[in-house]
Every structure is written in structure tokens, then in C-alpha cells.
């Protein structure tokens, strides 16, 4: 393994030299899922690859500790890529880093290490976790504080608008994504004005979390270069659909799709059913991570194709988990789609919790409840209660309270991130609660 790592490093160093790379950007992710970066010169790269680079973590969200604040960024040479939008003649490269404490141990505040750990636990049981996300986002005119966001067009689902500025942006975005090893499966104009969707090809979860970070940056970079603002805010416009990040997931045992069973009427193996049961049992506990903003909960409401109820079905878009019908019954394509997450989440933490919840279902042999194929939006609470169908948390505050009780979330995230996240997000909720909204003014100012 070490010899392979040496060849990786050698390849990286050689490429930097041959391509005249002037700057290497070391990327990592804070607890809230924001991409962080610092640049080093190529001369320092060899050192960085061998020993990591020390930096002061105290001003990074979720990294701060009472005692020593210095941590190490150790580049993962497998993620080394040239940045396709760097200036001609001054090539730049990026590499994702793992964060370690100065004694070399994985740093407990690093989300990438959380995912590494969770993926490894599944791997120790013989499984590889694959994810393919469908990511939605909006293009707007550059935002002006205090004003409503302005869409670029009034197009709808699959629309090909005549002056399709957004279409050109999407095309350029896909080109840059593919240059950075992120293949795209589909892209189209979504339902809402100026809303886009880009679906990525499946990869293993760690690669995909890195890809989602790169994706968000590329979408914003390409838009900004044309004077357009791209946003992953879950619900930027009232009254129309918000932006989700549906996650298609499967577990492979070697080359076999462990979710597939040709003898089952749904083509789902018992293992897939236990995995889904695990997701359903723990869905409420992990929602604070998959939907981490105050605004996230304005998307999770009835009537906008976002899930509200903790249920599953083959072809019911009001449920939390959908089992898409695989093309030509292809065993490799058998998968489940988890529909609540939004693209403002931290992908490392969200993927970790989804995998851990599913694995918990497998380990404990959870039973999958009945499929809920009726339109749940049209059922009243009593009818839902009779079916044993609960709702997802209704607000960030709800979600945090449920998360706080969760042993699973605590164990997966580790004490450091668990505690910091709850503290940080409680503060966000408090700030929101003190805000008097336009809704309240319109509703009460005159009438009360």
C-alpha cells in the first residue's frame, strides 16, 4: 500500500513540474459543510504530501478546541486535479486533505474523517457504499439585500427556453465538472423558474462527498463568471418547489449488488429491506444533518414534491424513500432513493449518517414496514397514525431535539462534532426566533 502511495505522490509531483503548476490549493471542509482552502507553492508540496501542513484551526467552524489549535492538513494524492478555470499560463491545482492533530491522529472535528471511519466500518463487513445524487439549485440575478431573488427565466420542467442563458451555463458547468473527473448523468431545467438539476454518476461515498464539494464550487464559479448568482438554498422562493439533493444509494459486496434479489417481487434483497428499515427508524434523528438550515424546513412541506412523511414506496414521490424501477431489471442498477436531504447539507456527515442508519438496520435485522403507495399528502393525521406513519421533524429546532436523543448520531459523529453542531445550530435557531418576518407584519399589524 505504501508503495502505491509513493507512486501517487511521485505522479503528483511530476505533474506539478510538467504542467508548470504555480499554486496548489489544499481543500478541506468545516463542520457546516463549507469548503475551506489555503494555497501553497509547488516547492512546499513534497513536504506537504509527506508530513502535512500545519495551520491554525481555531477560526474554522467546528475545529476550535480549548487547548492547542494547530492541526495538520494532509493531502490525499488521489484527489489531485488541475483546476480548469485557472488563469492561462498560471496553472493551479487542488487536492483534498484529511485533517489530523499534530500527533498524527485523525482530527475529531474533520467531517472527511467521519466519513472515512463510517465507510471503513461498512467495508470491514464486506460492503462498499455507492451514492449518486440529483442536485437541484437556482440561478438568480446577483442578489440585492432586502429584495426578493430575481430568476433568470420563467421556464418549467424540461423546458427549452429560447433565450436559454441558464442552458449555456449548465453546459459550461458540465464541461468543467467532467474535466475534474465528475461525470454527469443528466441535466435539465427543473420545475421552478430558473431552477436546474444536475444528476451525477454513482461513485463510492467518499469520492462523491468530495465531488459534491467540487460541484457546488464549480456551479457558483461558472455562474459568477457570467454575472449570475447560483444558490443551493433549499427554498429561495415561496410557492414553488425548493431544491433537494435526492440520494440514490446501493451497497455492493464485491461485484454483486447486495440490494438485488431477482426472486423478490420488488427485486429487493432482505438486506436492502433492512437497510431501508434502518433509514426509516433513524430518519428523524439524522434530519438535522441532512437538512441543517432554518430554511430547509420550508422545503419539507406538503404539495411541492418534497417528502414530509417517514415512509417508502416504489412509485410515490410523496414518501421519504422511493425504490426506482431499474432499467431492464438490471441487477447493478437496483437502488433506493432517499429524498429529504437538501444541497445545503454537509455531504460527508449526511452520507455517514445515512450509511450508519442503514447498517444499523442490517445489524439489528429491522423489519421493513408496509409500502405506503397512497398519496400521503391527502391523508389526515388519524389515517396516518393508523398506518404508523410519522412525520419528519417540522423545524430545525424539532430536528435538533430529536438528534440530541440519538445514540446513533452521537456515535457516528463523535462527541466533538455532535456537541459543536448542536450548540452552533441552537444559536442559529435562537437568532431566527427573534426575527419578525414580513408574514407576521402583513398578518397582524393591522388586524390585531
Amino acid at each position, binding site marked *: 500500500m505504501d*508503495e502505491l502511495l509513493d507512486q501517487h505522490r511521485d505522479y503528483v509531483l511530476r505533474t506539478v513540474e510538467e504542467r508548470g503548476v504555480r499554486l496548489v490549493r489544499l481543500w478541506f471542509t468545516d463542520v457546516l459543510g463549507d469548503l475551506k482552502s489555503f494555497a501553497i507553492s509547488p516547492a512546499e508540496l513534497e513536504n506537504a504530501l509527506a508530513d502535512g501542513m500545519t495551520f491554525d484551526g481555531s477560526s474554522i467552524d467546528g475545529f476550535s478546541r480549548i487547548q492547542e489549535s494547530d492541526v495538520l492538513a494532509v493531502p490525499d*494524492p*488521489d484527489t*489531485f*486535479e488541475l483546476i480548469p478555470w485557472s488563469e492561462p499560463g498560471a496553472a493551479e491545482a487542488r487536492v483534498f486533505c484529511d485533517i489530523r492533530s499534530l500527533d498524527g491522529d485523525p482530527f475529531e472535528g474533520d467531517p472527511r474523517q467521519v466519513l472515512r471511519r463510517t465507510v471503513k466500518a461498512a467495508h470491514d463487513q464486506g460492503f*462498499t457504499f455507492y451514492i449518486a445524487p440529483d442536485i437541484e439549485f437556482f440561478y438568480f440575478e446577483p442578489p440585492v439585500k432586502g429584495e426578493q431573488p430575481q430568476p433568470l427565466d420563467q421556464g418549467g420542467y424540461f423546458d427549452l427556453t429560447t433565450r436559454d442563458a441558464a442552458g449555456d451555463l449548465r453546459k459550461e458547468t458540465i464541461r468543467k465538472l467532467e474535466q475534474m*473527473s465528475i461525470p454527469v448523468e443528466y441535466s435539465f431545467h427543473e420545475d421552478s423558474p430558473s431552477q436546474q438539476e444536475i444528476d451525477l*454518476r454513482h461513485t*463510492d461515498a467518499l469520492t462523491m462527498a468530495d465531488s459534491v464539494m467540487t460541484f457546488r464550487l464549480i456551479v457558483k464559479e461558472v455562474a459568477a463568471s457570467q454575472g449570475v448568482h447560483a444558490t443551493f438554498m433549499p427554498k429561495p422562493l415561496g410557492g414553488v418547489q425548493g431544491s433537494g439533493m435526492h440520494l440514490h444509494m446501493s451497497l455492493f459486496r464485491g461485484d454483486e449488488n447486495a440490494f438485488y434479489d431477482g426472486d423478490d417481487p420488488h427485486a429487493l434483497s432482505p438486506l436492502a429491506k433492512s437497510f431501508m428499515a434502518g433509514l426509516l427508524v433513524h430518519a428523524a434523528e439524522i434530519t438535522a444533518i441532512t437538512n441543517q438550515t432554518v430554511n430547509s424546513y420550508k422545503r419539507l412541506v406538503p404539495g411541492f414534491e418534497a417528502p414530509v412523511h417517514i415512509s417508502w414506496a416504489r412509485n410515490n414521490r410523496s414518501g421519504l424513500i422511493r425504490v426506482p424501477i431499474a432499467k431492464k431489471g438490471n441487477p447493478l442498477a437496483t437502488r433506493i432513493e432517499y429524498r429529504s436531504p437538501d444541497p445545503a447539507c454537509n455531504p460527508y456527515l449526511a452520507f455517514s449518517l445515512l450509511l450508519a442508519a442503514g447498517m444499523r438496520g442490517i445489524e439489528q435485522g429491522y423489519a421493513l414496514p408496509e409500502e405506503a403507495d397512497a398519496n400521503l399528502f391527502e391523508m389526515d393525521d388519524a389515517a396516518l397514525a393508523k398506518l404508523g406513519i410519522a412525520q419528519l421533524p417540522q423545524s430545525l429546532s424539532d430536528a435538533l431535539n430529536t438528534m440530541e436523543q440519538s445514540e446513533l448520531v452521537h456515535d457516528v459523529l463523535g462527541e466533538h462534532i455532535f456537541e459543536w453542531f448542536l450548540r452552533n445550530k441552537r444559536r442559529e435557531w435562537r437568532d431566527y426566533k427573534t426575527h419578525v418576518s414580513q408574514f407576521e407584519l402583513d398578518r397582524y399589524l393591522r388586524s390585531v
Partner: protein
Amino acid sequence: MASMLAVFADPVAPELARSLDLAGYSWKGVASADEAADSEPAAGWKGAIVDCTTDPEGAWTFARTIRKSDGSQLNVLVLVGGAQVGDLELRDDLFDDFCLWPFHPTEFVARLRHLLWSAGDTPGPRVDLVEYGQLVLNLETYQATIAGRPLDMTYMEYELLKFLAQNPGKVFTREILLSRVWGYEYYGGARTVDVHIRRLRAKLGEEQASLIATVRSVGYRFGQSRWGS
């Protein structure tokens, strides 16, 4: 004796040691490429003997590593059991000659002598360009271009493309690609190959993506089929 032979074997079998000693070679057993690098004599290794009979995986990793170490011109003789001859296929780049195990001492020494003679006689650089159509791979600098435009790849993408381009027209299963390119039991399984193929096609661009063809229910082929389809 100007310099020594490195012998990768765990442990060095007594008959191998005896043959080398009787033929007058000085040699040293090494357990890894790192050890070979650390214990390299000032004049450099004269050549390497790699015993694949006890730990084939480790032996091929060793051969691959010394091949890739900077500017290595080291001549490599591999020892394989009768049932392992198939392992030689598609690994031609990793060794210069081979000898069947159990070996005939006279044949083994004759092969070794000839190998070292040819090494001493032809010190020139190896061919280090792979070309196919508009694709050029420089094996020395790891750089690739397509139609004159640089192609930026991750290391594993590069290794995969290199392997395919070195064997044009041939169909490979995912399993073969995994074992020959990744060279060890990579935990993602053969699906890893599909992911990398898709990434390579994306980078080759629309016009060149068809260089890598999917052969239904078999695997992948680089370039034209040898039957012209």
C-alpha cells in the same frame, strides 16, 4: 564483482542461494522495494531476481515498483511456477526474462548471464512513448496529450489509460483491468473500473470518448477491434 543482485524472495530458497553462490554472483535478499532502495549499493544494483512462487502478489508489486522508480534500468528476471505461466501475460512490461520453478541450475545461470550481458551492452533509455491515433502518453513524465491538448488525469486514470493504450484492440474484463492496473485487491471491486472508465471518457471529450468501447457483457476495449469492427 562490480555490484550486487537484489533477490526478492521470502525467504530466499536454499537452491536459489546455492546456484547464485556457485555461479559467483554476490547478492542480497530484500523483502520490499523500500528495502531494496535503502540497501542499494553505491554502484547500484546489477539486476533483480524476483521469486513469484511464495508470495505472487508481493512479488509483482515489487516488480512494478522497481520498474516505476525513477529512471530504473534494472533488469528483472522472474521465477514462476508451472501453474503461474499465465500470470506473465500482460505483465511484459514488468520483467525482462523468466525461468520456470523448479529451475534447472544450468539454465537459470545461463539466462541470468545473458540478461546481465544485454544490460551491460545496451544502456540506452527504454521506449517511453505510447501513441495511438491522436493520443500520446509519455511514460517518463506521466504526461498525456490528445490532439495536442494536454489531458489532465488522476494517477489511477492515467494508469488505466496507459494500460489500455499499450494493448489496443484487445478486450479486457473488469477483473483483468482491476488486477493488472490496480494490482491489488482494491476494495471497490470491479465497479471501480466502470467509474474510472466513465471519468476517462468524460476527460477524453466527446470526439475521443469512443476510443474506449464497451464490449457488452465482457468488458472494455481500447481503439479498433483487431477484426475491424
